[in-house]
């Protein structure tokens, strides 16, 4: 594909990746009260994975581990309240004043969201493993 043919695109993807991750981080934290959240953040990271795969740059591997970590995080957060006699998925909300950021409101839902993100990223990794995009790229280079 693009790999080995267009250094411009490769460099651009390389440079854009951290920025995209920043956007993902923003969406991740914005998700509490505004559009965004763990799923949206996962999609953006997934887009980075997609671009890096096509361009032949390193990307996250081992979809299973992403799935497992994500599912474990989600389940643990869902189950934890039961220990305290609260209903399933009940959340703890923390409100703190932090230097630089001012008043920050967050809670255990953040960990839940992190699990969701991990599952979505894992899905992207699995899809690109399945499509064997790496192989496709290699063929193109040989031509």
């Amino acid at each position: 594909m693009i790999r080995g043919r267009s250094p411009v695109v490769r460099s651009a993807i390389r440079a854009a990746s951290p920025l995209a991750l920043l956007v993902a981080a923003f969406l991740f934290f914005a998700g509490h009260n505004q559009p965004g959240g763990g799923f949206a953040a996962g999609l953006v990271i997934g887009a980075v994975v997609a671009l890096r795969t096509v361009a032949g740059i390193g990307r996250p591997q081992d979809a299973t581990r992403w799935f497992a970590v994500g599912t474990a995080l989600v389940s643990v957060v869902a189950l934890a309240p039961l220990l305290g006699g609260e209903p399933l998925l009940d959340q703890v909300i923390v409100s703190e004043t932090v230097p630089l950021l001012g008043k920050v409101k967050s809670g255990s839902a953040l960990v839940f969201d992190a699990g969701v993100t991990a599952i979505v990223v894992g899905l992207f990794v699995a899809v690109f493993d399945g499509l064997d995009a790496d192989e496709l790229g290699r063929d193109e280079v040989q031509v």
Partner: protein
Amino acid sequence: MTALVGLLVVVPMLAAAVGFVAGERQWVRDILTVGSLAGATAIAGILLAHVESEGTVVLRVGDWDPELGIVLVVDLMAALVLLVAMATILVVQLFAIGQRRTAWGADPQLSGPLLLVLTSGVVLAFLTGDLFTLFVAFELILVSSYVLLTHQGRRGQIRSGMTYVAMNLFASTLFLVGLAIVYASTGTVNLALLAERIPELDDPLRWGIGLWFLVVFGTKAAIFPLFSWLPDSYPTAPTTITAVFAGLLTKVGVYVLIRFHVLTGMDDLGPLILTLAGLTMVIGVAGALAQDDVKRILSFHIISQIGYMLMGLGLFTLAGIAGAIVFLVHHIPVKTVLFLVGGLIEEREGTSALDKIGGLAQRQPLLAVLFALPALSLAGIPPFSGFVAKLALVDAGIEKVVVPIVVIALANSVLTLVSMVKIWTGVFWGSGDDESATPIRILRPGHRLMVGATAVALIASLAIAASFGPLWDLGERAAADLLDSRAYIEAVVS
């Protein structure tokens, strides 16, 4: 008690996550799958006992108001079906552990954890109190079932898997659009609130919603004419997968169909549903008669049996709904046993095609018994559970004086028996000598576990027939709760 309800959904999920990373350590996966399924069965049993004496259990997830949040509702119908479903999956998993070392077994690294994800989805579908969570549950079931169906990558699996995926994705899309229609016209997707608001809508809109969801859930339940995805895809999967799918997945469709249409008072659709029920029965059994492979015949039977449950729903009477629920409970273990026996035959003979097997009754008398009893039960011969379940439905039909469906239901029983006889003569009778002596293989390790699991499931289904009196009472109470939606609404909203 509400904590148990939550555990039922989350624990299989968590066990699946750990199972995925267990790698080569098969014993970890075995402990996880069997342990969590046994736990789920125990919880389902406790819940049934509790709901039976104390009434509906409602879990408000995250303590949100029912209008905003997710509610899980365990009423009598849910608890009853849940217990049977969990026990069935547990038995199939034991069978799967026994079958693992043979060529027919599913890949344990994938199938164990994915079966747990599927279980979680099935639980969620049974318990959810709102339509959107139901959609999520369906997706959970479907995504894991796509992988389970096709993960061996055989040609037939991929080909029929495509039909399966396409049909179900289409139904899911319709479901999503239907959700939008319901939300736009009532302002909620909570089932209890819908039970209040949908009956107040104008007739055309109400009928539209009823028909729309009849198509959506009907596709999942494989009713006529939306069944085409089923008979091709099911027989290609590994036995244990087919057994779970056959026992449970279409029944999840029927279950939500009953729940939604009864709660929202869609009585006007009764005649249409009865017509579809008759067609589903006849077409299903006609398809079964035309097949010459054990697993394919059994797959077509699923469709024809769905017709009976639909018949109970279509009557919209107490006896009818109770009959449908009881039929559901009878059908899950019986169908699963039949497919497990199909798997045993396949493992024994290397094929499930009728013309290649013969004389199995002489060589494997135990297998013959394991097949004969549930087969007779499915056909509705006394004293098995199929007979009482069908009798209840026919009785309900006569009570409401709907002659055609009663006639079809009775005639259909005979045809079912005929197709079972076809399997019997093909597989178990005859000398089998013309086969130039099928080599009698040494019992593989795990074979005992497979036969044992099948036998346990069979005993469970016989127990259903033996305890039919109490079961019928439970079914009647569950149906009464559904028909009188006030009880449900009160439990959820207040």
